[in-house]
């Protein structure tokens, strides 16, 4: 799986299978602070992910 974390501007690649919520738990990211996007589609926390997925993790927080 390939992911890009917007807030820290990090690219990561690793083996993963599970839901969006599982992924966020692994990355220690609070779900309320991000949107997870796959090929332009916003995903809910229960969405199943596969190793072939490329995801963007967008930060909800902005401004001051």
């Amino acid at each position, binding site marked *: 799986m390939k992911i890009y974390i*917007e*807030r820290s501007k990090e690219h990561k690649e690793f083996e993963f299978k599970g839901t969006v919520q599982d992924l966020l738990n692994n990355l220690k990211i*609070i*779900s*309320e*602070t991000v*949107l997870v*996007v796959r090929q332009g*589609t*916003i*995903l*809910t*926390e*229960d*969405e199943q992910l596969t190793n072939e997925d490329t995801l963007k993790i*967008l*930060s*909800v*927080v*902005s*401004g*001051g």
Partner: protein
Amino acid sequence: MKCTRCEGKAIISNPSLCANHFEEYILEKVKKTITDFGLFSKKDRVCVAVSGGKDSLALIDILTRLGYSVEGLFIDEGIANYREFSSLDLHTFMDKHNLPLRTVSFKEISGHTLDEAMNTGKFHACTVCGTIRRYLLNKYSKEYDVIATGHNLDDESQTVLINLARGNTDLLLRQGPKSTTSKYFTQKVKPLIFVTEKQLLTYAILRGIKTGFEECPYANTSYRAHLRDLLNEEESKHPGTKLNIINTYLELKQGLSKEDSDEKQIGICELCGEASQEHICKACKLVSEVKQLLD
């Protein structure tokens, strides 16, 4: 997860909605806030305080879709590697929708940017920014019926907690969807007060509103940033926490007498002629301090 309105694939939870029904839900929610709290009508000229971030651009988009007449007022604090990006997004958005936009800057009134003031090491960024921003918003919005800001449920629930924790009774009592009316101030309204920050980013993406991720470089120094993280953690574990804070606050406020929630006696600043609780307003005092240090 399925959409609770059509059984289609949901893109967001709490409530679970598909893209089309989510947009519909947001429009309904904002319309209800405007109507329930009497924020403004379709006859009113609405000045939207815009930063170019997702909240203020989504606000303009929503109000325009609901048929309100809006114009933008942009305040440039002078924060390098931050404000110029959102300014670009803002100008592109306003040009595309053919909406009027006025820009005013900190530099215009003090001769210096916020960055320059901060380089002296004598100021707290959020205090300077908040004071000068409120001053400029009021000064340049007199021809309008209301100023609408993009404050969302996250902002408001954080502010309730900040004011409670710091014992800021006066400020706490002034919170809510609309400010009290006064001949010295244009009334401020918050149509997005019941929409979370996460919902606003979702809306912005669905509407193709381009906003990059830019966090104010001074934000992490604030108590607000700490409370923001704390509240987001609670909201993830206990959905509805932020809404409960605001609803409880509004219920308590309703029970207070008018005198309790009225603003203090307002007069006129001897230097600039704008509204002030003292002989010299806070903005003029700050500008004078900045000039003394930098000129």
